[in-house]
């Protein structure tokens, strides 16, 4: 291991990145500087180092100049390190004797107005990289087998789509859903914009397909408890919540619910309709199995008696933990609506006739609590005009600064549904901008205007309730007229913002994936990798990553499904060879390292009476280095991030050699 020859023939390749780097930093000057650095025997530059001719330059130079290490000064290693490692390998070097000097994100792009200081900094960065490259060691990539199964967390339309794509290609899929039925928010919707096809009609067949698919194991009323492992080898512990009903025995007849004496607001109908303590959330539920809400069940036994010989009900059922091994995971946990009651000026929760867009969906939905009749919650009467408040909690520094992307379109759709079902009832849309950006969306906007909906360009400042009529007096400015206006509305629909599901944060911590400032889960790259995360083998689909309409959700789900299958189909995954290594001669067996390791990858073994040694399991170690930094005897080496490699960078920064 030690005493191998250190690289002393380093080649430096400087990328112009078009004008991204060359426009700020004089490339020739940088190249000449690189040539003065210790161990550098060759320096070259090219417009786009990542292009084929650029990579070719590296390959050729390795041979021509007998290089034993390569430094590319270009963009971030997070972008192109894999590209150039391959190029080095193609030239015959070990791909790990390669170092990237990030002079774009870390210099030219952030100091565009100070080219001289940007150049100085670029020289420092190159010098530090060369110093490090001169101490890099060849490493072997290890491969580990992959568990041939995928878990999809969340069974809304995103999860359903992803599960079907994966299962169809023959891979075992575990579909985990915390609610009693799959279907998610989409199953609550009535029509979908802009085509107006019925949401249930297009979703239900997919739900049934999931139920029948031989490769899909659907676990409803189930939550993720714990996640262990890493790419290819995750062990997920799920909690099968006590349903009170044995799924195998229940035939969904509903006799139990008929005799249940407890009535509650049905969460699925957002409290607008009732359910029993033993219930299915909606008639098309999949699986069509009843669930007992133990928080409200009074254990009167009536349902048990009614169920009789079928013996499907168990009032003493307990939660059950199940371990599932999978190779990759897709997160598709969806969205909640922003708690719009926090915007007190609009009176949601205080005024009977102020509802949210999702509640509107339930009221206008033929399978909803009113059978599709839009009525005022205060008196059951038909509204003669309805105000829609767009951007309710979106584009708002006090609530959510982002645009929720679907509210304009679904509010247009709501307006259409009102005019279609209830001739004479007028929808008024209070908007700031109508964002109709999708295919056939702007045309839909045209159609709704043409149908007679009224549009007022102004945000609603406040709503008052008439204490007698329970009408809502909406106050806004018609900014196009420049006049304050009021509307005496029978009903108000708040297009409440989309926020990540409340439970996402807990799950995120279990999966160690990141979130963006808007609290949605963070994708690996906003443009080129919108369905991966920074953690290998964990993927994102749907609104957990950001507000989306149904087509975008389905597209992302299919993308995530394809990406999640890649390691499964390869059958093995490469491990970055950056694991910790213990030097047996130095290890005193104190055990500090073992107590720090988050992956339990370090074990202590007895090597004679009173003497212990630490050893590292390569497959379990992820190379974080927490142990290495703590080892009092410096017995732990972090491969590719060795002490001397890092200290060489520090020394090169503060005590420059070369650069004459």
């Amino acid at each position, binding site marked *: 291991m030690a005493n191998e020859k250190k690289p002393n023939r380093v080649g430096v390749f400087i990328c112009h990145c078009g004008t991204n780097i060359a426009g700020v930093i004089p490339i020739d000057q940088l190249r000449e500087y690189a040539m003065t650095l210790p161990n550098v025997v060759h320096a070259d530059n090219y417009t786009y180092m990542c292009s084929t001719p650029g990579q070719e330059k590296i390959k050729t130079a390795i041979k021509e100049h007998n290089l034993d290490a390569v430094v590319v000064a270009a963009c971030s290693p997070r972008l192109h390190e894999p590209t150039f490692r391959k190029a080095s390998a193609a030239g015959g070097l070990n791909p790990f004797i390669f170092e990237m000097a990030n002079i774009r994100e870390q210099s030219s792009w952030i100091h565009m107005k100070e080219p001289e200081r940007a150049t100085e900094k670029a020289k420092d960065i190159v010098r530090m990289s060369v110093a490090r490259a001169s101490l890099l060691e060849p490493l072997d990539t290890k491969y580990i087998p992959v568990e041939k199964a995928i878990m999809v967390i969340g069974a809304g339309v995103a999860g359903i789509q992803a599960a079907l794509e994966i299962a169809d290609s023959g891979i075992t899929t575990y579909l985990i859903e915390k609610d009693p039925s799959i279907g998610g928010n989409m199953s609550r919707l009535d029509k979908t914009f802009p085509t107006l096809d019925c949401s249930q009609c297009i979703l239900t067949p997919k739900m049934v397909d999931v139920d029948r698919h031989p490769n899909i194991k659907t676990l409803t009323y189930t939550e993720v408890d714990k996640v262990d492992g890493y790419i290819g080898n995750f062990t997920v512990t799920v909690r099968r919540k006590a349903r009170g009903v044995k799924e195998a025995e229940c035939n969904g007849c509903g006799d139990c619910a008929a005799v249940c004496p407890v009535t509650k607001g049905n969460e699925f109908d957002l409290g607008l309709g009732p359910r029993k303590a033993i219930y299915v959330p909606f008639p098309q539920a999949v699986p069509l199995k009843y669930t007992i809400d133990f928080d409200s069940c009074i254990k009167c036994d009536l349902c048990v008696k009614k169920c009789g010989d079928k013996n499907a009900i168990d009032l003493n059922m307990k939660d059950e933990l199940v371990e599932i091994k999978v190779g990759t995971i897709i997160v598709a946990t969806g969205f909640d609506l922003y708690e719009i009651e926090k915007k007190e*000026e609009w009176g949601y929760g205080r005024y009977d006739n102020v509802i949210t867009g999702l509640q509107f969906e339930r009221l206008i939905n033929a399978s909803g609590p009113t059978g599709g009749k839009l009525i005022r919650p205060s008196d059951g009467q038909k509204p003669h005009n309805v105000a829609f408040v767009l*951007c309710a909690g979106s*584009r*708002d*520094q*006090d*609530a959510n600064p982002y645009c929720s992307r679907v509210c304009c379109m679904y509010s247009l759709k709501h307006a259409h549904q009102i005019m279609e079902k209830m001739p004479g009832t007028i929808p008024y849309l209070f908007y*700031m901008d109508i964002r109709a950006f999708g295919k056939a969306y702007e045309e839909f906007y045209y159609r709704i205007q043409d149908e007679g909906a009224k549009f007022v*360009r*102004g*945000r*609603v*400042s*406040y709503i008052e309730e008439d204490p007698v009529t329970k009408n809502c007096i909406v*106050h*806004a*400015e*018609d*900014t196009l007229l*420049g006049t*304050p*206006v009021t509307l005496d509305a029978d009903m108000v629909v708040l297009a409440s913002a989309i926020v990540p599901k409340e439970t996402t944060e807990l799950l995120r911590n279990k999966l160690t994936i990141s979130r963006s400032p808007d609290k949605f889960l963070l994708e690996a790259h906003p443009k080129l990798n919108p369905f991966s995360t920074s953690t290998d083998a964990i993927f994102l689909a749907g609104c957990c990553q950001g507000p989306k309409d149904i087509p975008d959700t389905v597209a992302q789900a299919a993308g995530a499904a394809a990406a999640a299958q890649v390691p499964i189909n390869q059958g093995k995954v490469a491990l970055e060879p950056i694991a910790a290594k213990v030097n047996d001669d130095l290890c005193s067996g104190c055990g500090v390292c073992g107590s720090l390791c988050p992956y339990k990858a370090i074990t202590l073994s007895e090597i004679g009476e009173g003497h212990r040694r630490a050893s590292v399991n390569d497959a379990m170690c992820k190379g974080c280095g927490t142990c290495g930094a703590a080892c009092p005897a410096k017995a732990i080496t972090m491969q590719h991030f060795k002490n001397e490699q890092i200290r060489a960078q520090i020394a090169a920064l503060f005590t420059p050699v070369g650069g004459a």
Partner: protein
Amino acid sequence: MALESQVLSLNKGLVNFTHEVEKGGGENISVCYQCGTCTAGCPMGRRNALRTRKIMRMTALGLKDELLKSDEIWYCSTCYTCTDRCPRHVKPTDVIIALRNMATKNLLAPKNFLQNATFIYQTGHAVPINDATKKLRVKLGLPENPPTTHAFPEFMPGVRAILDGTGLMAIKAQMDAKEVKK
């Protein structure tokens, strides 16, 4: 004679003016997206020409002359409803106050505002005591003069030094002179 052009030339806008107003306490004007929440919630604008959103718009465009000379900026009762509800955290009330400060420096403030300064300069109070209240105070068991600058006039030189020190009384004097000329 040719008719007067009805076109507003945006070149008239003074970019620096917008920054000045922002520095004067009216932060974030440039992020205003003109939603009208301010105008719609304004209790004063329901009965007169005060249009808060329009003032924000004119400030963002730098229309200094029109703003400082407008009567409307003096209609605001500073209830802060607009500031409180603004989804962009613009502070329309503070923008209006900044505009009023600038108008004052340009000797465009209504007279009654400066009158307050005179009262404070003379007595320490914008609403000084009168004989009826003195009598009432005694009846209520309070001292005839409250324990303010009324009972302790030795504090008045300090009050005057402040009013002189910031230059406000000089503005008042200039305005009085302007008034006499008229």
